[in-house]
């Protein structure tokens, strides 16, 4: 018994001195913090601790379950208008009370964006919302152009987190006008309503959160969190060992054992809600015949990639879908398969003469990206495709010479519209870069998928879109990479299934420290 007590005491000891304070060693620190303009994997780590949306979801659950946040209730008062009641007594980190005006300002800075970085973000996901309007001090309305099947999903996006109007406008120039420079200044001195206040922020270097005592909900469990950029993986792992960091981010699969072998340390991880994909250029003169692209796709044994590169921990999808998408998750659809014999037949039918097919990859942007490319070249060779890797930092997705390359399709929000939808919409990024074609039929199917309020219709329409992708492929999702965090055993934290990728959620109920 004494020994048990002693070991318990020892295990808790290193944290006891700093029970309420932790340090996170992050592979990347954001260069700016503005939830509105950001949708990067780096920035996504930080917003949830400091900002709130009107509607939130229960992040412990994979299936969406909406919960009140800055709005206490909401209802559709017409098919295109949602009315929301605002929570009383909410304060911003700078002490200002949150008003209906702040909410309208935050929403309309995106919905009626003029600041170019907002414009581009609003266009791909908030285009159906022309404006938000104030009804009274506690009530606001959000208008939609068309009936919207994804109200809660889109109102809970990081991009429409609430920020203070007067504070933001006063940052530069005229204190009564929202200038572009105000939004740029805000990104260096961000203020929200969340449980952690951003005490200090050095772009690309360091962020310090402190508990916000006036938070409207359950108070933050930690007094202080320091997030420090430690870009080298070896230094990150060492910092965890030496105690300079309590949690570290982005551990590659081959480094996991370094941490798991140490009894004072542990890892937590999950398959990220993001696909590493291979894209193929439908409009390259030599790849116009879809059979060649089908063969490029069918030749790839994605399960083998998963076993070899991710120790089998990644998820290989049968179609462009994720379990996070709730009712729209369609694991039964089979859009992508491994069938080398079929690939050979298709190449023969298409009269492939052995011309070289290039596969572009960035040297380090995607974990295991180059290794996957090398394995894919071998798999292609096995069916007779003459592939060649081109390593370079330059984005080639908009080049007419592109044949194939790697890319990623993150889940920006939990719906196929938030993943496949953002990237492969008619006139979306892929089409506008000239490597993906859509026609009226595609657009019509797309419209049913995006706007129908009947889930069954949306699912059927999505299945049709996947059929189009199968017939004339422009993309192959390879896998959902497995992402890991390392931490001291005394820390009880893990990524929650209800979040978008990479969120460091340190709110009440999300993290506990043994001994505190």
């Amino acid at each position, binding site marked *: 018994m004494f020994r048990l007590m002693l070991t318990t005491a020892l295990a808790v000891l290193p944290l006891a001195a700093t029970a309420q304070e932790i340090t996170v060693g992050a592979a990347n620190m954001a260069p*700016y913090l503005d939830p509105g303009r950001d*949708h990067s*994997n780096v920035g996504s780590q930080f917003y949830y601790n400091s900002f709130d949306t009107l509607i939130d979801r229960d992040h412990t659950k994979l299936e969406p379950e909406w919960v009140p946040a800055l709005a206490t209730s909401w209802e559709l008062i017409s098919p295109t208008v949602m009315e929301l009641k605002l929570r009383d007594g909410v304060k911003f980190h700078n002490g200002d009370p949150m008003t209906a005006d702040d909410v309208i300002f935050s929403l309309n800075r995106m919905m009626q964006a003029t600041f170019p*970085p907002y414009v581009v973000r609003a266009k791909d996901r908030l285009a159906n919302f022309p404006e938000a309007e104030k009804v009274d001090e506690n009530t606001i309305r959000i208008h939609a152009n068309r009936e919207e099947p994804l109200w809660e999903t889109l109102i809970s996006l990081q991009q429409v987190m609430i920020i203070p109007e007067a504070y933001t406008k006063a940052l530069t120039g005229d204190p009564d006008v929202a200038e572009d420079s105000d939004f740029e200044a805000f990104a260096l001195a961000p203020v929200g309503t969340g449980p952690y206040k951003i005490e200090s922020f050095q772009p690309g270097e360091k962020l310090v959160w402190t508990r916000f005592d006036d938070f409207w909900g359950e108070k933050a469990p930690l007094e202080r969190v320091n997030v*420090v950029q430690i870009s080298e993986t070896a*230094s990150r792992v060492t910092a965890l060992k*030496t105690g300079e960091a309590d949690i570290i981010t982005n551990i590659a699969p081959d480094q996991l054992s370094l941490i798991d072998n140490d009894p004072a340390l542990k890892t937590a991880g999950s398959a990220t809600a993001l696909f590493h994909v291979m894209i193929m250029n439908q409009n390259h003169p030599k790849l116009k015949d879809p059979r060649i692209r089908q063969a490029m796709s069918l030749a790839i044994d994605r399960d083998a990639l998963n076993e070899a590169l991710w120790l089998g921990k990644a998820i290989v999808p049968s179609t462009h879908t994720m379990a996070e998408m709730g009712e729209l998750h369609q694991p039964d659809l089979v859009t992508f398969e491994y069938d080398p014999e079929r690939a050979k037949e298709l190449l023969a039918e298409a009269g492939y003469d052995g011309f070289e097919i290039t596969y572009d990859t960035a040297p380090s942007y995607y974990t295991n990206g180059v290794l996957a490319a090398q394995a894919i070249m071998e798999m292609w060779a096995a069916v007779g495709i003459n592939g060649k890797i081109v390593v370079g930092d*330059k984005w080639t997705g908009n080049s007419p010479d592109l044949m194939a390359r790697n890319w990623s399709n993150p889940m920006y929000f939990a719906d196929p519209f938030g993943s496949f939808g953002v990237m492969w919409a008619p006139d979306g990024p892929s089409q506008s870069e000239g490597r993906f074609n859509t026609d009226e039929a595609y657009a019509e199917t797309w419209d049913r998928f995006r706007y129908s309020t009947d889930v069954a219709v949306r699912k059927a329409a999505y299945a049709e879109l996947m059929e189009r992708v199968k017939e004339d492929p422009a993309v192959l999702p390879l896998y959902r990479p497995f992402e890991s965090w390392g931490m001291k055993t005394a820390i009880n934290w893990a990524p929650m299934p209800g979040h978008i990728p990479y969120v460091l959620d340190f709110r009440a109920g999300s993290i506990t420290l043994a001994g505190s």
Partner: protein
Amino acid sequence: MIPYLIRVAVKSVVTLFAIATITFIATRLSGNPIDTFLGDGLTEEGRAELIRYFQLDGSLWQQYLAFMRGAVSGEFGLSFVDRRPVTEVVSDRLWASGQLLLASVAFTLLVAIPLGILGAIYRKSWIGSAVMMVAFAGYAVPSFILAIVMVLVFSYWLNWLPVVGNGSFAHFIMPTIAMSGVLIAALTRFTRNAMLDVLGQDFIRTARAKGLGEARVVLRHGLGNAGVTVISVIGLQVAGLAAAGSVVVESIFSWPGIGQLLVNAALVRDYPVLQFGVITVAVAVVAINALTDVSYALADPRIRLARS
């Protein structure tokens, strides 16, 4: 002396102009910032809008002229990423890098000059051989290997030294040694060789014949004259260190200096930060070189007189 100083100054300005131009072209060749830091999934229309917003839509020539006009008046623009003036972004990092550089130079001098003298005096005994071994080993081990091995031994295994940041004296130990390794190797060898040359000269024999103590012979007459060579080596090596060594070492030790800043800026193609960062380092290198030239001249009247 004055014409000599003018020549050094003109040479420095021309060098800086060339570096600014090369930096401008090199950053433009390496890709577009819009594609790297704004993440995936931008439409062509959105890309065009951002290119306008960040004023990347002019021709390369127009951008170059604007950059040069700004540079002359001290305006180097805003970072594409965090939209602060680059002068502020870089100066925030300057002191951390400067501290590391100073610590490394001081450490190098303290170690390399005594070692070099020992190597020269005891050139025929095992001490001299040991010194040369150390010097060759230092040459052979690149700073990043030295850094990683130290991290493994002193932090990962022994848990004696911290690896992140520049918060205390202990934080300086490993980065300083990593930065100094190659420099110590070079300077030890040069000091030894210069001392050997000088100690074989007639005036040293004269000094000994006058009955001066050996310490005085070696330090005053020997090192005093070997100093000219040593100064030039220090200058060149320190300049190289400021430019290159810090990038790797700062990344490994998360040192909040210019090297780390440049790596991050290069990854996201933050042209203004890259340009100004490289120019700042270039100014440091050129200044160190100019100082070397001048002190070389001061230390050796022959150079001063011959050149003017």
